[in-house]
């Protein structure tokens, strides 16, 4: 095992990277030139004309393109990756998560954390599970890696909140038990292919 990491006692200063922002204008003349160039480019009027045209279309020709959100919402694609949902088994109502920890491992923004324990039924119980949505980048790896289709992305994309970081606990994401009949099988990212049934092989029985 390498001991390198233990020799670096300079904790907290080693991860910075400088960004390449290009050359900034150096002399006042160069700076003046840049301001002028940005101010008097004719593209401004091209943009204004587009707005004008669309306004006329909408007001006088009845060609309105905007959806009246939040009174009106468009259906979103099943592959859209919004706030996670934890699904339950349809038969028993037990949550599907087995606590394997693959989502925690694969999460590239390191926002999933879980606690597991050995429960009374000799099973692995997920005692706590959180996702830090302040960090989550909704990449969908967790849903893709989940071997049980337990964690999936739902359609809930409205995640504005008063604080930058917001957490969700296991219970927040879990299908409420009284709404189990409404639980949708997830067709999106990580779901079995339409031909999955044909690919299932029976375990050979020798007896």
């Amino acid at each position, binding site marked *: 095992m390498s001991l390198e990491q233990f020799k670096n006692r300079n904790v907290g200063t080693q991860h910075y990277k400088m960004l390449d922002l290009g050359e900034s204008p150096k002399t006042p003349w160069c700076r003046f030139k840049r301001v002028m160039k940005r101010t008097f480019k004719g593209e401004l009027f091209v943009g204004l004309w587009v707005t004008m045209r669309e306004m006329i279309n909408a007001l006088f020709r009845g060609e309105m393109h905007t959806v009246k959100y939040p009174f009106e919402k468009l259906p979103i694609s099943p592959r859209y990756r919004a706030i996670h949902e934890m699904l339950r088994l349809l038969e028993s109502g037990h949550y599907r998560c087995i606590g394997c920890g693959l989502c925690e491992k694969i999460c590239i923004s390191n926002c999933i*954390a879980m606690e597991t324990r050995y429960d009374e039924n000799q099973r692995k119980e997920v005692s706590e599970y959180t996702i830090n949505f302040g960090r989550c980048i909704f990449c969908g790896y967790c849903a893709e890696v989940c071997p049980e289709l337990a964690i999936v992305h739902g359609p809930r994309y409205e995640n504005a909140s008063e604080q930058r970081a917001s957490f969700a606990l296991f219970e927040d994401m879990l299908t409420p038990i009284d709404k189990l009949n409404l639980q949708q099988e997830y067709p999106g990212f990580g779901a079995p292919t339409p031909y999955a049934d044909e690919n299932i092989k029976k375990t050979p029985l020798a007896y």
Partner: protein
Amino acid sequence: MGVHNSIGLGKEITITIDGKECKSTYGKTILQIARENGIYIPTMCYLTKVKPIASCRMCIVNVEGVEGAILSCQEKAVDGAVITTNNEGLFLERQNIMKLYNVNHPLECGVCDQSGECDLQNKTLEFEVDNQTFTAREQFRPIENWGHVSYDASLCIMCEKCVRVSTEITGDEALQIKFGGYSSEIINVKPEKNYATLGEAAAVCPVGALVDTNFKYIANAWELTQVPSSCPHCGGGCQLYYEVKPAGIENRRETIYRVGNNYEFSTLCPAGRYAFDYDNTTAVKDPEAFNRAIEAFKKAKTIRFSSMTSNEEALILQKLKEKYGYRLLSPEAKAYRDFMDAYGSVTGSHLYGGDLKTLGKSQGIIILGTRLNDDHPTVKYHVNMASKWERARVAYIHPMEDPEMQTIVTQFIKNEVGSEEGVAALLAEVLLRDAALPESARAFLSDLDIGQLSAESNVGEEELEALKASLHKRHGFSLIVGTDLYAHPRAKEIAKIIALFEKYGGYNVICVPPAGNAMGISLICDLDDEAEGSVIGYNVSGDFTLSAMGGGDLDMPAMNQQEGTLTTLEKRVVPMHVATPYEGYILNDIANALGLDAEYTIDYTAQLPEARGYKAVDFDTLPDYFDITGEAHRGYLLDPKSVPVDESFDEVAELEDFDGTIVYQCNPQEHFSPFTAMSKELASKPLLRGSAQFATAAKLQDGDTVSFEIDGVRFERVFKIDTSMKGTIALNPIYDMGLSWALLSSYRFSQVKFERMNNEKVGS
């Protein structure tokens, strides 16, 4: 070293493996030579530290001119052999073995604790077995909880590693195989004892069949960060990894989840494996307490400290002594230092000459002055290896028989309490009769009043003659002496007699250091005998107490929270790294405030005294690994330094009478100090244990609460009759005594007066 009967052993040979010419010596197996040369041969059941098990057949190779496949793990290579380790046929064969291993193996990798570090997973992928081709009728195999470990027979692949470890290494012999074809399984034949040594068996399990009960399902292998370190508990300094991860979702503090080790080559004892949760988590920087500490240091005349102190901290204390003239008190280490000084005055070296590797290959072993199984499990493991592999004769000389040693010891010699000097002299007289002893030693031995000594020590001449006879025609002898001798009133005289065995008898002598880093402290510090004035206690109670276990005036980091080195039984200086965070002050801060100057404690590593065998090596350059052949590259070995020789011997002293009720200070195998006592896994109630005979002699009844005093420390213990014990000596553990623990340093047997606290029955 043992001399082997096979002819040609050790002869140079050259073999060709996969076209590569490999030079080696005769006696090594094909697999060993292949590994030395970096050639990969897959194995499932091979465990380097035990004899080849040969149950998996994965290591098969083809040898030119030999029909069929050869098991490379147990076949010795012969000169000129041409070996192929891999071809289509061998691959198919190995693939089929993997298919059979996977028969009905539960597909629960998702929750299995071994997932990610599982040999079965690795080899299944390596040999491209992507489905379970065969199945058998499922059997009912409930998960068994054996206490420290749990066993799931349905995951077991019957590689036998656990059985071999429990038999050949740890010697608890609790595990056996229940043969029965497909329904074979491992059984625990001593479930009532709940051996913590089974943790070693769980560590070598290649699958998730045998796992630590308390670790089960709480963390995945890949979530744990391994921090390499050395175990500070017993003085063995065994290699280990602390496996750390944040404690939970709410508490992101790094916590040790379990301890791992390089189980291919080394073994941990129960304390090393399970006593890891003693870190000081509540410490904060309290400047007021710190200032009080500085004030106390300025006022104090004496610093008293326990053996749980690293080399660097010992050096800081020594430097403070040089600067301010403190008296340094560490009674255990001081007694060891005095013993070793006397020992060196005969051998001419400041260290003993023995080592564990030679011990494990000895054919004759004598154990004197230690309850080895409890005092030093790692040394016991090596005695056990010698017993199992070399059929070593093991003579165990002690006032108390130890049932745990029964399967290893071939001759138990019971001596009277306090008679160790006479016993050592008698041993030397009998076993060194033909050695080329110097004049003074010869005169000393021939002047012995054998009859009187035999009578006093209760060791019969015929017992020793029988011992000598049993060692006849054997080679490679070891002598292990322990803590009973160091605090003995005649320790120096005993040391000189023992030293004769090393210098003139050719014995591999190991003077097992007391627990903790007593050896390092004894080498680094100039220790004093008596306290004077105000006392600073470091992990011992004093007028101002620095404590890593709570209850002190200023918090200190525990051993797993600090960088530093330890000096081990193997005379090796090994590094420890920081496993869990610590927010308080450390000894180096105090030293800096008092005028020393070092940024980190480990700046002192290179300054350890070269006159005492240390090297001027920086901490960061200390290696810590085992190479592929199992050779330890850990820290460095101390250089033996020559010391003046003075071979004068003193007459054996009259024996002090030890009558009545005697109590022997002895911790159970799992415990060494208040730090191991903090372990949740090893939590146990400390009891005064004695035989029924002892109970009668001391007029005690099972369940009585008694109070007694040793070295000014008051004990209150529940007395328990232990039917496995004999004689009139009771065992009194001291590991739970907190800050008083390190005050207990006199001769381990003491006569005590019991005061009965009440007559209530506690327990049955």
